[in-house]
């Protein structure tokens, strides 16, 4: 493996470099877009107390009178040294979003820990028993759950398990003061909803990836040699389908970090999506920027890992041409 580690290293380094560039571009786009929005933090926060005098004083204090690209460069300089700055409300940005980021990561991690093995297993079952009842059943249900908007899934789950059966609380509003068991109990419904939403995608892609490999001549060869079908799927097909499966898993993990805002709103879960919405509403630029960076970094990071996995699982990709 010593000769193959260097190409992986250089690939990872060049991807990281491109990733950093994307982060800068993403933050520039978001910064300028927020600057183009009408209204400012001062008028948003002062509301019906926003006299011209108070708005002017606040904008002066926040340095909002400088041109936006100057403010962007100042922000970029600080961010490069790891300083996310202060929210306009006067608290360090990391204090504002830190606890919410932890909540989001916990929710994503628990969901992923259940969803990834489960969906790959179900995908393999579907591929193994293609065309049989279990395959048709799983394909139909996953297709249905992928077609229903996530908030609707959330409301159905809530109506059945919280309102009718009253098994779980409708509100996942966890607090720092609650103990672990209580927090977990309150997270059941959002986890269940997210499972329904992302399982479908991953199961279908796992099944498709394995089936496309199953069409290869070498699978035919393995069958002709008399290998049992399960062994063909697990030993011959699955290793070559790992690349595409890793990509779809990466996409779904990134979604769990950055895309679950609707679930957060429905279940009143204090995650980072709500922090982003709150800060956009208030034009709290430092917080918006930090959230955007986290979201973009999640996508870039997970995709990078997926690429590394597919390359390691398929040495041909290490030697292009």
């Amino acid at each position, binding site marked *: 493996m010593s000769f193959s580690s260097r190409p992986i290293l250089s690939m990872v380094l060049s991807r990281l470099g491109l990733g950093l560039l994307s982060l800068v571009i993403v933050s520039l786009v978001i910064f300028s877009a927020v600057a183009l929005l009408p209204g400012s933090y001062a008028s948003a926060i002062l*509301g019906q107390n926003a006299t011209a005098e108070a708005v002017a004083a606040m904008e002066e204090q926040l340095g909002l009178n400088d041109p936006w690209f100057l403010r962007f460069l100042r922000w970029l300089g600080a961010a490069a040294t790891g300083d996310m700055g202060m929210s306009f409300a006067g608290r360090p940005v990391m204090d504002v979003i830190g606890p919410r980021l932890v909540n989001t990561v916990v929710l994503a991690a628990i969901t992923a820990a259940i969803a990834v093995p489960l969906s790959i297993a179900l995908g393999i079952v579907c591929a193994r028993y293609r065309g049989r009842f279990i395959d048709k059943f799983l394909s139909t249900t996953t297709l249905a759950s992928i077609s229903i908007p996530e908030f609707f899934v959330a409301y159905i789950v809530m109506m059945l398990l919280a*309102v009718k059966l009253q098994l779980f609380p409708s509100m996942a509003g966890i607090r*720092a003061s609650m103990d672990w068991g209580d927090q977990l109990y309150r997270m059941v419904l959002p986890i269940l909803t997210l499972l329904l939403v992302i399982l479908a995608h991953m199961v279908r892609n796992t099944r498709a990836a394995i089936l496309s490999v199953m069409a290869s001549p070498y699978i035919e060869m393995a069958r002709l040699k008399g290998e049992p079908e399960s062994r063909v799927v697990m030993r011959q097909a699955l290793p070559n389908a790992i690349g595409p499966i890793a990509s779809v898993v990466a996409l779904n993990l990134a979604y769990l970090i950055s895309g679950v805002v609707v679930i957060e709103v429905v279940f009143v879960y204090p995650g980072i999506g709500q922090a982003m919405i709150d800060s956009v509403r208030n034009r709290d630029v430092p917080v918006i920027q930090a959230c955007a960076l986290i979201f973009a970094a999640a996508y870039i990071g997970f995709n990078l890992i997926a690429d590394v996995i597919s390359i390691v699982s398929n040495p041909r990709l290490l030697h292009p041409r």
Partner: protein
Amino acid sequence: MTHLSRLLAPGRRGFLAGLAVSAGTLALPRGALAQDTPKQGGTLRYAVNDGSQNETLDPAGWATVATGVAFNGALCNNLVELMPDGSVAGDLAESWTADDGAARWTFVLRKGVTFHDGRPFTAEDARQSMLHHMGEGSTSGALAIVDQIADVAVQGEDLVFTLKAGNADFPALLTDYHLSIFPARDGGGIDWQSGIGTGAFKLESFEPGIAISLVRNPAYHKPGLPHFDAVEIINIPDSTARLNALLTGEVDVIEDVDIRNIAMVEGNPDLKVVRTPSLRHLTFDMNCSVAPYDNPAVRKALKLAIDRDDIVQKVFLGEAEVGNDTPVARIMPLFAETPPQYAYDPEAARAILAEAGLDGVTVDLSVAESAFPGAVEAAVLFKEHAAKAGITVNVVNEADDGYWDNVWLKKPFNASDWYGRVTLDWLFATSYTSDSPWNNTGFSNARFDELHKAARTELDPAKRAALYAEMQQILHDDGGVITVAFVSWRLAMSSAIGHGVMGGVLPGDNHRAAERWWRLDA
């Protein structure tokens, strides 16, 4: 619903009677009689809709219902308290006197009050709590109020305010929720960071935009209060999630229940809806200095060409009160009737225009859903009403985002959402005198300005009432405001929560829900 709102309509006495009836019928069968005798104990879980991660303990930055109900109303006290009937009573101040034409105010402070950490409340604490909002570069939400103060000094054990000009309403202005009292720091300033006040509840935990928890202060200075052992203010921005939380018993009270869900809540014997008339009013504002609205005949015709009852029924499903084209709510102490009540009369509108030599008028009305909930629908109905009077109303659908920066105060005929002000003086000084900063109707009336100035320093109640009555009549007859509706605070709550008549100036029983309410099942 309509039945109820009609009961609420005819003035303050009618409103009290209406509320008594509604409390009785809605709370049945459980505990309608027990409402009178508050019980001790239990927890109040109160869900708000506007919490923000930018919330702070710093009173200068309070802007949400969450901080209002939790910090202003439960953690702290002001020098004065805004009573449910809109009057002003002493709180940390016992009494006050005015001299120098209402320009010098001496407040006698209450003795024996302590902060949550045991240190005694002194005049210096009160002084620093005022100075916190004053001075160069202040960004306090109370800036417009403290701007009137030239000096605040401790004299013996009293607090003396010297104003830049006389203001007979000054004690009422001190009810502003930012002006809560915090302990003074050695060397100046206040210590808001530790979350220590004099209020009925002590701060237990504060997670901005998520929840605020408070526990009972056994040493509270008001005898017998508070009733709850603990209070939680929980932020649930989504209206469906908020209703679900109430239905599943996760919270006891929710702010701002959607009018489409009211029937469902009222159909549930464990829940009730409590409506409290507020100062909030929704308007279509004409700029009186811009053609064609500079013509009084056009303003009058437009006021007669809108069917307010139709809009209240169709857009607000009966959950609003018609106005009479002044910005003054009935619950304000100096409210005056301004006859005649404008009613839909397309023929009269057409006649007024004809008399002024106009054959029909075309106007552009700028609206957006963010102007006020239902603004677009109300404008479309207005267009239909006005067409019968030969008036063409072009409904201009403006962008939601940025409405308040690009349309409001800028377009000559626009929709506006006003939260009102605690005194008429302040209300008019904000938006109706010729030099007011938010003069959305471009109103400039010499007599109105003169009366405003005279009323400000008039201490005789009868004379004040007469001055303000004349001002309200001027706005009604000549102003550019079409008051589409006054709206109430709508709280949906568990039938297990007991309460008296609620104040409507601020949300949550004038922010003091935590100390005024109780649990019937405690």
